[in-house]
């Protein structure tokens, strides 16, 4: 065991991690002819709405994931151990399926003639809405697909396990004695949760938020599949410049760079809420 054993990976990291980032920086600050420019960044100003939308939708998805995922992790951690394993497997299982297929599955559910709208028609909700609201033209379905809501739903569906797993992992490790001590001292169960359990589970929450937010903010498939491609997210914008209809890798690099910086900033702010003990939890889980 000698430290030089790490050198091959050191070289690898230089070539495949450091160099590509420098390359993105280089591209971001040059134009097509290779001359230095800030033009890529100034032309990006007109895309602030895309950045705003991406962060908003990703934020919404993260909040929903947290609201749905925390109780799930909490309830799971209270189950008998045998069942916990079973539930964990149930949560893992969909994650192992290709996420394009999982997203595609929602299309049939949300479409205008999809399962939800069929169901609403069959039980008479659509008719009821028509008689109650009396719209100018009678509606035949609720517009669910190709909306921002559908995109958030797609994100929540795909990334919910990322929220549940880290929180669950922290919750099961909380020392039961602490909780008992609080109870012995006469704290009502609500207070035990607020003052003991929740603060102790913070590292898991932070890890979960990061693991949901980062992929959500840069997704480019969910918005295309469930959002109708009408309103781009940052991921779409980058895809558009590299592989899509507006070839411009310089601009694409600038966007990627700014996004990296913004996400890094978000994570830095997030980690402020953390006392540092969660760092390993976030990475290792």
């Amino acid at each position, binding site marked *: 065991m000698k430290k030089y054993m790490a050198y091959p990976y050191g070289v690898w990291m230089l070539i495949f991690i450091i160099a590509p980032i420098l*390359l993105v920086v280089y591209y971001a600050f040059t134009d097509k002819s290779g001359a230095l420019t800030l033009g890529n960044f100034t032309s990006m100003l007109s895309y602030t709405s895309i950045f705003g939308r991406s962060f908003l939708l990703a934020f919404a998805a993260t909040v929903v994931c947290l609201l749905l995922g925390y109780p799930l992790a909490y309830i799971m951690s209270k189950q008998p151990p045998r069942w916990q*394993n079973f*539930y964990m497997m*149930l949560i893992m299982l969909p994650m192992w399926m290709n*996420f394009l297929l999982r997203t595609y599955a929602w299309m049939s559910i949300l479409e205008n003639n999809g399962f939800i709208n069929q169901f609403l028609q069959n039980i008479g909700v659509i008719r009821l809405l028509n008689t109650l609201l009396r719209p100018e033209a009678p509606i035949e379905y609720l517009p669910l697909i190709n909306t921002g809501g559908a995109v958030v739903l797609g994100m929540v569906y795909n990334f919910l396990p*990322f929220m549940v797993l880290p929180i669950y992992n922290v919750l099961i490790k909380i020392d039961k004695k602490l909780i008992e001590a609080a109870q012995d001292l006469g704290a009502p169960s609500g207070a035990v949760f607020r003052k003991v359990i929740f603060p102790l589970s913070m590292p898991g929450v932070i890890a979960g938020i990061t693991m949901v937010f980062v992929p959500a903010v*840069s997704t480019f498939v969910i918005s295309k599949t469930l959002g109708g491609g009408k309103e781009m997210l940052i991921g779409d914008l980058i895809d558009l410049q590299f592989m899509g209809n507006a070839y411009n*890798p310089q601009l694409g690099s600038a966007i990627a760079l700014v996004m990296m910086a913004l996400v890094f900033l978000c994570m830095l702010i997030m980690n402020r809420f953390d006392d540092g003990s969660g760092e390993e939890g976030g990475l290792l*889980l």
Partner: protein
Amino acid sequence: MKRFFQQFYLLLLFLFLYAPIFTLMLFSFNADKSRVIWHGFTLDWYAELFRDSTIIHSLYVTLIVAFASALLSTLLGTVAALGIHCMRRRTKGVYLTVNSIPMSTSDTIMGVTFMLLFAMLMLEKGYLTLILAHTTFSVPYVVLNVMPKLRQLDKNAYEAALDLGATPSQALQKVILPEIMPGIVTGAIMAFTLSVDDFVVSYFTAGTTSQPLSVVIYSMTRRRISPKINALSTLLFLAVLILLVIINFRQSRDESHKNAQKPKYQPLKGVEN
């Protein structure tokens, strides 16, 4: 009462997680192309799926890339972890920081950076670029699975082996490797799964003759959708289910005679982009 609500909540969320998948699977047996109206039972889509040479080929690509990148990243990562373990705090910190970059960068950005790199290196997109890219995003997980095992290692055991006349390589093989093996295996499994599951990085780095399954699925969903996709989903789901049951079974058998502290399930970065 409280317990009832808890169970109900679990049920509701699992319904949310599984209803889409089950409808997808159900309609793989639909006798019509429709994705929402049931027309009767058929197995035609499965037959068509197996006749589709593009899909079959992409499955090979996925497996080759997953095996190769898992192997490469396990080797690279394990050796690196051994080295990093011996480093002084500062260098160690630098290594671990750089090592964590691929894990905290979004896949879209990683894909784009690889694309630029391979273009500069004049590497044509293909198996090689896929394997290089997948290895890069997998190694950090191997390193981070092996490192804790090294920390738990009894330092004196290695020294003792040397004192007793073992060569360093013998000591490594007989003393250290067996101890850190669980970490290596977990890392390898994670690397394999990450690779199989990846779409975004592959999307930016796959060549024309080496498109993995996920990229082919993507282009399938961009056209007229054939229920072949549903058939494919069903088969993949069953494969994963069987795999998970086996792993779970083995794990619970192992754990029964070894009270491990580590969390049982490693969340795999199952979703990209």
